[in-house]
Each structure stands twice: as structure tokens, then as C-alpha cells.
């Protein structure tokens, strides 16, 4: 039996694998499908016992109502977009050079610094939330998109540095030496050589930073009141207020997660390579 053939295994193994994969698909997809389905069903269909899935109950009215009535959702999405974009771009702009320095520019005690940086990301949010809240309220920056963005920046920066540093460590040093011989300075080498060959991990880091900032709830809850509320807060509030209008609740939740799901799906290969691999090594 050839090795390739062996890898697929005998009949029972293939059956087991097939069954396992079907289970996996159901387990992962069912809740998401139900989210999508609930959002396009009439309320009366949803509160039937069991739910009535017949096609005549399909409707877009949940979306229309949610988009039309809940101005908070639109503002939340916009706020989230602004904060997430800021946190993403700023963390890449600061983190990529820092990662390059830690990976390749013989900064003294670079790996110790890198670990300390990563360790800050592991801090429980609650531990820093209290003093951060005190400081930000003293500065009068509660309910302010900028202060929220800066806080997210500080959470994203360590991850961005970590992902990119792991990638930069693997760049063959001949490239940088060739660039130096060709007349590029340190910054020129970084800009013309290192960054262009690092697009996949930069993309992974960007998607990661964006998704984290878009989804963050705890600090948004503490640091915003009204005008700077981000979309998770809107959804949570919505779920509290209209907890019996299930279709609309799901429609709102779906709208709020679509942007990040699209990003994650589009860039899944980069995420897998850039992030999963990066967490496994130091």
C-alpha cells in the first residue's frame, strides 16, 4: 500500500473521519446558521413551538426595522469602524518598526523586551481598568473615541509586535546585507525590502487588531457613555431592551458581525499562517 494511500486509512478510519468532519461542520455552523435564519424569519414563526421554518415566513422586515429605527446601531458601527481603524493603523505604524528593531537590529536584550511586551497583553483587563478609568475620567476623556482608540492601541501593539517579530526573525539576513551594499540605509531597507515581503503577516496582524478592536466590550462599557458607544455595546443594550423581538435582535447582531467575519474569511490563510504559527514559537 502506498504511503499516500495509507494516509487516508482503511474503510473504518475513513468512515470515522467523514463522520467526524460532518459533526464538526454541524457543531460549528449550526449556531451561525440559526443566527442567519432567525434574522429573516417573522416573529410569529420564531415563537412557534417548535419554530416554524416554512418559506412563507421569510422576511426582510427585521433588517428594515433595525436599520430604520435603531440609529444607535448605525452610530455604533461608525464608532467601531473609526476606533478599530485607528487602533489597527496606529498599532501597525508603531508595532512594525518596533518588531523589526526587536527581531533584527541588535537591540540589547531584545528577546527579554519582546517577552515583557507580550506579557502586558496577558494582563487581565480588570486589573488595569480601574486606574485607567480613574485617569481618563480625571482627564475628562470618558465617552471619547480617541481615548478608547488609544487604549485599544495599547492592547493591539503587543500582539502586532509579536506576530511581526516572529516573521522578521525568519527573513534571511542576506537580503538586508544586499540592501546595505546596494546603498539603502536602515530605514530604506525596512521600507523597500522588509515591509514589501511581509505583506501576509502585516495583513494577519491588521485583521487581528481590527477584529479585536471591533469586538471589544469591557473597556467600551467602562469608558463610554453615549456618543462614543461602539457596536458591541449597542448590541448588548439592544438585547436587553428588545429581548423579546428575537428576529430584530438577530438581525442587529448579524449586521454587527458581518464586517469582521468577511475580513476573517477573506484573510483566513494569512491569519492561520501569521497568527497560529506565531503563537507557537518565542
Amino acid at each position, binding site marked *: 500500500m502506498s504511503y499516500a494511500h495509507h494516509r487516508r486509512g482503511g474503510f473504518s478510519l475513513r468512515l470515522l473521519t467523514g463522520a467526524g468532519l460532518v459533526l464538526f*461542520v454541524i457543531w460549528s455552523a449550526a449556531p451561525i446558521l440559526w443566527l442567519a435564519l432567525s434574522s429573516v424569519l417573522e416573529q410569529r414563526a420564531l415563537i412557534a413551538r417548535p419554530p416554524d421554518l416554512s418559506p412563507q415566513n421569510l422576511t426582510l422586515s427585521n433588517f428594515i426595522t433595525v436599520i430604520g429605527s435603531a440609529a444607535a446601531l448605525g452610530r455604533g458601527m461608525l464608532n467601531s469602524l473609526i476606533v478599530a481603524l485607528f487602533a489597527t493603523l496606529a498599532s501597525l505604524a508603531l508595532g512594525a518598526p518596533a518588531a523589526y528593531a*526587536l527581531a533584527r537590529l541588535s537591540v540589547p536584550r531584545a528577546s527579554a523586551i519582546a*517577552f515583557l511586551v507580550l506579557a502586558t497583553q496577558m494582563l487581565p483587563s480588570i486589573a488595569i481598568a480601574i486606574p485607567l478609568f480613574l485617569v481618563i475620567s480625571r482627564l475628562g476623556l470618558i465617552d471619547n473615541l480617541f481615548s478608547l482608540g488609544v487604549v485599544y492601541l495599547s492592547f493591539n501593539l503587543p500582539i502586532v509586535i509579536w506576530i511581526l517579530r516572529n516573521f522578521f526573525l525568519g527573513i534571511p539576513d542576506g537580503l538586508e546585507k544586499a540592501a546595505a551594499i546596494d546603498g539603502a540605509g536602515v530605514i530604506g531597507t525596512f521600507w523597500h525590502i522588509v515591509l514589501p515581503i511581509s505583506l501576509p503577516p502585516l495583513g494577519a496582524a491588521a485583521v487581528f487588531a481590527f477584529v479585536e478592536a471591533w469586538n471589544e466590550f*469591557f473597556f467600551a462599557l467602562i469608558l463610554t457613555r453615549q456618543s462614543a458607544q461602539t457596536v458591541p455595546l449597542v448590541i448588548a443594550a439592544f438585547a436587553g431592551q428588545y429581548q423579546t423581538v428575537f428576529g430584530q435582535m438577530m438581525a442587529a447582531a448579524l449586521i454587527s458581525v458581518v464586517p469582521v467575519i468577511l475580513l476573517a474569511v477573506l484573510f483566513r490563510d494569512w*491569519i492561520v499562517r501569521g497568527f497560529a504559527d506565531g503563537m507557537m514559537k518565542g
Partner: protein
Amino acid sequence: MPSPATYEQRRQTAGLFLLAPSIVVLLAILGYPIVESLLLAFQKVQLAAGGIDRQFVGLANFQRLVADETFRRALLNTLYFAAAEVVLVVLIAFAIALLLNHPFGRAGLFRILLVVPWAIAPVANAVLWKWILNANYGVLNGLLQSLGIIDVYQVWLGTPVSALNFLLLVDVWKSVPFVALLLLAGLQRVPSVLYKAAYMDGASRLQTLMHVTLPSMRAAIAVAVVLQTIWSLRIFDLVFVLTRGGPADATVLLNFLAYRVTFNFLDIGYGAAIANVIFVMTILLAILYIRLVRPAGEAAR
């Protein structure tokens, strides 16, 4: 005209310049709060009109912890939650990683299914599951009743034990895919010559799994365990949306307790003391994580 500098000197100087902004930002935003949080835990803090009144009280906050029934409850809840979650997540994720590493599991759909739950906001996830678990109209009730598994609709989040376990289930669902990605990355890093050699040596599949796969995956599994533990200690959004800690504080986890004490009861010093407990637990785990990944990192340099 800059003073002459060699390649190595220029790189070192540039390195410090490139690194400095990030370090400054991290120190400015996180450095102060960390120190402050440690200090707050030893203080009694009261919100007086227009200001904050702070007073050192030594270990008083920590002494309160020892006597506090709710804290003890939350600590036990958290330990149970974290331990159960780690075991479940790593086992399920490992099984999924094995499935996806099989030639059948290569299809793109499977990778998509792994990243989607990761991308969904914890709050949206909580809202979704609140609906799925709804006592009157939830699809879980509907499904189980149609299948004849239950007679009447259940209040899944209504009794302490059931509520905590459903909270666990929901978080496991959300956490599994990412850990599966980590473990899949680890699996794909096992050199295929090892498998080929095991095949040549006539090892059975189980033997190959036990003697080739698992030993090569030890580091990856260890990292997944530690990271998942750290993530489990951070749960907040889910509790906040799904149960608010109820019923009867059955789902109060440490993080949520610290939030409630601080921001609802405005007992800031005591909240900080609880936060410090989580802080210490996490730091210990973080050190463990660093120990685990470090040898690989040093070798790579």
C-alpha cells in the same frame, strides 16, 4: 554630515529609535495603571463629591477577601470554569485538528468554519446563545423536544449548575476553533518523514499517534493549555450579557465580580484587590507560557 558609523552601529542606533515609540506608548498607557492597580488594592477609596478620597489600609482588602462568601464562590466558579474549559477545548480542538490534518479535511470550507466563530464578537455570540437557550422559544428546546429528548421546555439558565455549564458550553464553542488552528499549525509542523518512518516500521495508527504525533505536539499542546487558561480567566462579556452572574451568583466569575464590586458597588479598593488576585494568577500562567515557548525561540535565533 553625521559622524561616521559602521553598519552594525547604524542598525543598533536605528533600532532604538524604531523601538522607542512603542515602548513609550505601552509604558504610558499600561505602565501607570499596573502600578496604580497594585497600590489601590491596599487603599480604601471613596468617591467624595467631585473627587476621590484615598487612604492606605494595609492588608484590609485582602483580609476581607478571605472572609467574603461571594469571593469564595466566584473563585471556585472560576477554577471550575477554567479547568473544565481547558480540558474540553483542548480535547475537542485536538480532535478537530486531527480531522483537518487528514487528507479529507483539506477543503477550504473547514478553514472558514474555524475562523468564523473566532471573529464573532463575544457579545454577539452571547446574544445569539441567549436566544438559542431561551426558555420559552429557544431552538434548543424546540429541537430537543422534537427529538423526544425532553418533554417540556427547560429553563437552561435558570438553575445554578445548569447555568454555569451552559455558560461553559457557549465559551467552549467560541474558543475551540482558534485553539484548533494553533494545534493544526503544530500538527503540520511534525516532519512528515517521521510518519513515513513510522509507517515503514509497521507502527499501527494508534502507536503512531502515541509515539510520533503526541510527543512532537507536546510543546504545542502545552502552549494551547496555558493560553486557553489565561483566556478563560478573562471571561466577562459572556457573563455580562447571558446571566449577569445569576442565578444566585452561580455564574459570577472573578473578573465579573471585580467589575461589579468596582463599578456597581463603587468599592474601588476592594475591586482592585480582587483584580490583583486575577493578576497574580495570570502572571504565573504567563511565566509558564514564556518558559514553554522560549527554548524554541532561542534556538531559532
